[in-house]
């Protein structure tokens, strides 16, 4: 299993490098006079979009990054060049399904709130029950934090968030690796 992970990382790296260099060409050659902050944001944005599009819509987090970037019109050139026009259809569909999920979740939350009130009234019987209560609440809290960290996590259930976080971590590692190598190469050449 380690070998398949390594193989996938190598493939992802190749795709990411290709797309990021493309993105950097688009960003850094458009305006010659950019201040440091603007340039840094463009570099970071092109890296994120390149990473997301290198996944080829196989994961939720990558689709979330691209649909978030598409909301800003200034990024459209970058997004279209890196991810192609197919993502637009997916984006619209995702927006509709996300909206449906949000409204249905709101309805569920209202009914859950009532159930929770009823549950809290029940006393915890033995010590082991209390421990599992606390453990469950801790896990729930941590999962909420993870939902905020993984792109698109707010729309996922707890199981998918963990699955997506696995893949997101692996891809972030690839991104950091490539960026480090580029920074080192540029430092040496300078």
């Amino acid at each position: 299993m380690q070998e398949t992970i390594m193989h996938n990382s190598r493939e992802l790296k190749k795709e990411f490098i290709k797309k990021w260099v493309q993105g950097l060409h688009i960003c850094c050659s458009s305006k010659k006079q950019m201040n440091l902050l603007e340039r840094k944001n463009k570099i970071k944005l092109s890296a994120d979009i390149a990473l997301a599009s290198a996944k080829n819509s196989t994961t939720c987090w990558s689709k979330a990054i691209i649909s978030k970037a598409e909301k800003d019109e200034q990024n459209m050139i970058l997004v279209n060049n890196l991810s192609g026009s197919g993502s637009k259809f997916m984006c619209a569909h995702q927006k509709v399904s996300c909206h449906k999920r949000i409204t249905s979740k709101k309805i569920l939350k209202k009914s859950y709130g009532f159930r929770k009130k009823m549950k809290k009234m029940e006393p915890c019987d033995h010590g082991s029950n209390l421990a599992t209560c606390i453990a469950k609440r801790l896990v729930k809290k941590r999962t909420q934090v993870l939902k905020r960290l993984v792109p698109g996590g707010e729309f996922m259930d707890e199981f998918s968030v963990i699955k997506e976080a696995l893949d997101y971590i692996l891809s972030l590692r690839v991104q950091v690796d490539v960026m480090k190598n580029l920074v080192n190469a540029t430092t040496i050449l300078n």
Partner: protein
Amino acid sequence: MSSRRSGESSSETLKITDAQIVQLLSKLKQLLPEIRNRRSNKASASKVLQETCNYVRSLHREVDDLSDRLSQLLSTVDAESPEASVIRSLIM
């Protein structure tokens, strides 16, 4: 969706995904540097999740830091030198 039906389906899905959750958490454990280094198999679910959040945050910070350095380096590249032209042709 009646509340009774949703109660039953949630307990069913819990049965199916409990084992899968354990599997996922063990995979996560292998990825996280902190827990791997300590070599303890006793990491609880909440600890694994906490380490995951910390790791994702640190990776985000690294990306931010590297973008910063890269932008500083690229802004100083406008000198006339063969190396600068290499960088320019590669990235800009």
